[in-house]
């Protein structure tokens, strides 16, 4: 098995007095896609933010390539090779779409390669080419999401942290995005940590999965195994056993709590 490139050990992160994650450890192996599943407010975003230095953990260690990176400035972390597609389309609203993409490649200096990558991104999302000179703030929600993903690609990172990349995208684009993700992973060996509400597609794309509940990891396994588990099938994939009533109004308790 390949080496662990990103190692999270026992981190605790607070929002003021609120403890959002409570001692979490996880590993992302080089060349693999790991995914974190969890309900709303479980703390998935917080994990990613802690890794990329947006938030400081109170305790614990984040190790990247054998080096501790917690509590550093996010730009420094990024320059080590971790690129983060944040939740909620953080574009630069008054810069043109093109300038947004260029900012994605801020840490790179090879002009030709950057130009090539822009073309590549345009081929993935032709609409970004059409809108190249429009301020990004005027794009539609889905277009901003495409921009946000493309921008992270422009950095050519070693590890990509993806926070709900499919948010607000059309079914066709969701499929395309995950094809691209998989392709980048396979062809360029890019490592990814993926957080996604669409558990079905996430589990089918990823190699290894963690299940998060109110700030704690309650289950971890390869995605093949996870896909077999009944709780996962029921609560994350929405596949119900036949025989039970088709639509239920009550919330069934999860077995692992």
């Amino acid at each position, binding site marked *: 098995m390949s080496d662990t490139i990103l190692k999270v050990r026992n981190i605790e992160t*607070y*929002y*003021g*007095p609120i*403890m959002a994650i409570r001692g979490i450890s996880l590993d992302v192996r080089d060349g693999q896609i790991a995914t974190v599943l969890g309900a709303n407010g479980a703390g998935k975003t917080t994990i990613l933010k802690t890794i990329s230095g*947006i*938030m400081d953990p*109170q305790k614990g260690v984040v190790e990247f390539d054998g080096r501790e990176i917690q509590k550093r400035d996010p730009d420094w972390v990024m320059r080590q090779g971790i690129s983060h597609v944040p939740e909620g389309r953080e574009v630069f*609203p*008054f810069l043109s779409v093109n300038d947004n993409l260029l900012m994605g490649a801020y840490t790179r200096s090879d002009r030709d390669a950057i130009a090539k990558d822009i073309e590549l991104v345009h081929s993935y999302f032709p609409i970004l080419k059409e809108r190249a000179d429009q301020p990004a703030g005027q794009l539609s929600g889905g277009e901003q999401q495409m921009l946000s993903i493309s921008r992270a690609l422009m950095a050519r990172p070693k590890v990509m942290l993806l926070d709900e990349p499919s948010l607000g995208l059309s079914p066709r684009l969701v499929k395309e995005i995950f094809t691209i993700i998989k392709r980048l992973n396979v062809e360029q060996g890019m490592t990814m940590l993926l957080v996604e509400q669409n558990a079905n597609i996430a589990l089918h794309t990823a190699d290894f999965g963690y299940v998060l509940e109110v700030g704690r990891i309650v289950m971890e396994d390869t995605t093949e195994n996870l896909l077999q588990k009944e709780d996962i099938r029921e609560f994350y994939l929405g596949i119900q056993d036949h025989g039970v009533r088709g639509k239920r109004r009550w919330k069934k308790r999860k077995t692992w709590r």
Partner: protein
Amino acid sequence: MRFLFKTDYDQDIRIAKHSGYYWSYGLLLLVVIAAPFFLESYYIGQMTQLYIIAIAGVGLMLLAGYTGLVSLGHAAFFGIGAYTEAVMTGNGIPLPFMDEPMVFSFLVSMPMAAIFAALAGVVIGIPVLRLTGIYLAIATFAFAIVIEEVLSRWESVTNGYTGLLVESLYVGDLELSDGPPFYFLCLGLLILVILMSINLLRSPTGRAMMAIRDSEISAQSMGVNLARVKTTAFALSAGVTGLAGALFAHKLGFLSPESFTVFQSLELLVLVVVGGIGSLHGAIFGAMFVLALPQGLAILKDYLPTSIAETPGMEPFIFGLILVLVIIFEPYGIYGRWLKIKHYFQMFPVYKRATFKRQKAYMKSERLK
């Protein structure tokens, strides 16, 4: 630790959330009522000044803190209130059916001061409805400059730069505009203004103001008439500030346009932010800051060697330094810190260290609102 059990809706609507409020604010009230019987006249004067500034602070807080509209021109409303008061109780106003200009009782002139200032608020409020942020701040600033010019040019009424003497107020033989009587007048008005603000803030208009501050578009979609609420906010804010101006006129005793410049506007803004933007407590804390700090420094100077104490510019230097330190220490103002300390004691056995620890923060363009 205190647990609150809610049994009816009224509980949320009431001013005092629980019995602790009655105790703490009752005690505070008792102290401020008793104060003039114990204090030296100098300190009575200072407290009076504090109340006046706090009223103006509440006025600006309604606009900047709750509606999110920043004004760099509140000194103008302050000035309009002050001059209205001085003219109406002093030289009086010539009325068509009277031979002599009519001199008014303060019972008339003070409300009029507030009303004139409120009207001025509407006059500036309406044209600048579409402005936000720095543009609004500068528009109000420009307006204030125009008002300052009017105050200095309209010599027949304001006496221009020569200045206008403010008459003292009497009720019978009792001088109302000085000493303890004035103290109680200002205190009473401050309490009145605070109560009205609290009322407003727990009613639909107040909520609409806060809605506008956070998101104009969705406020609008919920049926908030932006133009109307903003104009109301301007008028109220200006009116309250004008009332403070009327009191200030008596406190100062002599008005000239130089008392109402952009620096006074800036000082009010400092008050609001340092106190803690978006809370009425903040207005009071802020008033203490802008008033008590220079006073404290002045008193401190008595104990320093003359050569240091009288170094030119020492006072503003320390003022600036403390302003900077306060904000660096607590960007959410004194009230923000107060809340944390209160929280600490309320949660006492189970508080968490992290409460006081500041997470990294990231600014986002406020041009989009």
